[in-house]
């Protein structure tokens, strides 16, 4: 199965950059066909499916996160839209992904990266 949500209103997604990989991409950025960027991290796994957090991003915010200006915890907890999406990806490829919007205030610590963990990719000055 792909790590990208399939047939949801997030759109037709493609990987932009993988930041952390462990047997599959674990932390990555993807973009919809209409140009919306998402930062994505694996939240949990179960017998039948995995859950992933999708956070929509502006390009400026993405560059800030990518260059280490914002830690991964706050990338999700202080999402620009105040919502993130919890996406269920089923191992059975015939089942479409399920998506649930979650207000960031309802996110629990055990759903998020630890505070003060940063991506630190060298980027061009904005």
């Amino acid at each position, binding site marked *: 199965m792909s790590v990208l949500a399939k047939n949801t209103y997030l759109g037709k997604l493609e990987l932009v950059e993988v930041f*952390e*990989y462990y047997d*599959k*991409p674990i932390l990555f950025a993807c973009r919809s066909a209409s140009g919306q960027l998402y930062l994505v*991290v*694996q939240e949990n*796994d179960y017998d039948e499916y995995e859950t992933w957090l999708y956070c929509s991003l502006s390009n400026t915010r993405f560059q800030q996160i990518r260059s280490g200006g914002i830690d991964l915890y706050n990338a999700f907890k202080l999402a620009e839209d105040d919502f993130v999406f919890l996406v269920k990806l089923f*191992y059975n490829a015939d089942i479409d992904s399920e998506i649930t919007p979650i207000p960031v205030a309802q996110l629990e610590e055990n759903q998020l990266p*630890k505070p003060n963990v940063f991506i630190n990719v060298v980027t061009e000055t904005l």
Partner: protein
Amino acid sequence: MGIFIMQWRDHLPDDCPPDDALPAHGLVYRLANKANFDSKDFLSRREEKPDGEWDVTECIAGGVSIYTELNGIKRLQEISPAMRRKKIIKGTLESKHGKMKNTPSTTHPSHFTWWIPIDSQPWKVFQLVNLSDT
């Protein structure tokens, strides 16, 4: 003296492991789903889901992830809640355990991809890491 030819698992493409992969060696770390881990914790994504679509090359999907530094796998757990729920295990690999290649992630250089041959049982050389000892 006979020539030893390593036999690879059937799911790997012909040109995999790549020519620049090194014989497996040294202390490495991996995550297991439970403390009493077993062979299932050493399956690649391709072996777990033979019909799946993947976002990486077939050779990478056919290998398993390991870290050569404990800090690398701890960092992975700090990033992903799903990874945090797993157990860190460690083992010292020898050439009989296959081949490995440095495939660093953007955030840590000590990630390797490890290809395990058919007749290898590497879980026998792994043990649980007690983080209070580190």
